[in-house]
């Protein structure tokens, strides 16, 4: 089977979200960089893969998939469906609940913080501390809910690793490069869950990709 192709820069936590899923699902993939500086993401070639001209995009033979969370699910269904539990009504529901929570509660609060700390300065702008502070308040409330959840279960969807856990990896790895790296210290079960995730070879692979020399 030819490796799938994942298009996009490893700087993007939407791209590396997919890397975590591909790695854990054991799908062979090739990372193809997209040069934002030259506007490659808006080129006809890339728009054919993702009509919104964004990253990531995935190519598997004749099939193009875009939107990171759709790509992640595709990777799991293709090679490791137990990460989704789609054959089990209750377990798949728990996976879906925490997949949605990652998108709508966790990353929606974390992403503006990452943008202000890591991306805005790179684009020549000034970090907006007000945005960071507002989102830290939100994120801490979210982490309280996670703390209660992870007190009851080893992983988010239950006592099994699922895509719901993996979808948190890329953005959480980026947190380490901000002044808020020790945010989880106040939430011991969240911290333990994260340490467990960090020990996984798939997560270590993503972390290595994100290092500046990559």
């Amino acid at each position, binding site marked *: 089977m030819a490796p799938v192709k994942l298009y996009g820069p490893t700087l993007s936590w939407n791209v590396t979200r997919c890397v975590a899923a591909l790695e854990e699902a054991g799908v062979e993939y090739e990372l193809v960089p997209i040069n934002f500086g030259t506007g490659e993401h808006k080129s006809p070639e890339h728009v054919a893969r993702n*009509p*919104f001209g964004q990253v990531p995009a995935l190519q598997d033979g004749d*099939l193009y*998939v*875009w*939107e990171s*969370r*759709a790509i992640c*699910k*595709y990777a799991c*269904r*293709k090679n490791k469906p137990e990460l989704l539990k*789609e054959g089990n*009504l*209750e377990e*798949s*529901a728990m996976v*879906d*609940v925490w*997949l*949605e*929570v990652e*998108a*709508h*509660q966790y990353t929606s609060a974390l992403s503006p913080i990452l943008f202000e700390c890591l991306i805005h300065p790179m684009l020549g702008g000034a970090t907006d501390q007000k945005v960071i502070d507002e989102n830290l308040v939100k994120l801490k409330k*979210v982490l309280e*809910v996670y703390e*209660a*959840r992870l007190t009851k279960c080893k992983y988010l969807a239950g006592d099994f690793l699922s895509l719901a856990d993996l979808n948190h990896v890329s953005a959480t790895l980026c947190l380490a490069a901000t002044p808020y790296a020790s945010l989880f210290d106040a939430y011991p079960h969240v911290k333990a869950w994260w340490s467990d995730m960090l020990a996984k070879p798939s997560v270590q692979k993503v972390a290595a990709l994100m290092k500046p020399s990559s």
Partner: protein
Amino acid sequence: MLRLATIATTLTRKLMAPVKVFGPAASTNVARVLVCLEEVGADYELVDIDFPGKGHKRPDHLARNPFGQVPAFQDGDVILFESRAIAKYVLRKYKSEQLDLLREGNLEEAAMVDVWTEVETHQYHPALSPIVLECFIYPTLRGLPTNQKVVDESLEKAKKVLEIYETHLSKHKYLAGDFVSFADFNHFACTFYFMDATPYSNLFDSYPYVKAWWENLMSRPSMKKLGANMSTRN
């Protein structure tokens, strides 16, 4: 044989205890779940949450949805939150050969359902919903004036998004392919309010395939029924 199978399925569904959805019917996220329940013909009970009285922050609701939001859902011992997770549970539970709205048995079709579900969340809804907020929600519920600048910027974004939908729907009858799916249903509530509660419904006239797709969806009994309850013109 097909007719007997259909009767048996209908009877079985009638014998199951109704599931409960918690939240107001007017909420787009509650409507997301109700569309799916209506489509599969499930028995359900809608339990309103008293938002003005902070019902969503009370312990009984927080036990169902720790983020204190709507909807929440109960099916016997199963308690769920997040509208898309609830909707998928419903579509999986009531799935049949005639009714497969997620296509999880088919790698490519399931991927397309997921893609266009994500697109609604990250592209379509963020372009249309500020227009609904500014033209209807803020003036009616908060007594605030419409911020026309926000409306105009959102209309420009909406046009770019609709151009992409137009190209796509010129090649496929529905969003995930030539079959109706969860991806189409996810667009119902947001589009309904855009059409019903803002002066910009004629925006879709410039995108004939999108308009035809929307009118086709609205001809479905589930959406006609829910639309009648949701209409702001009553």
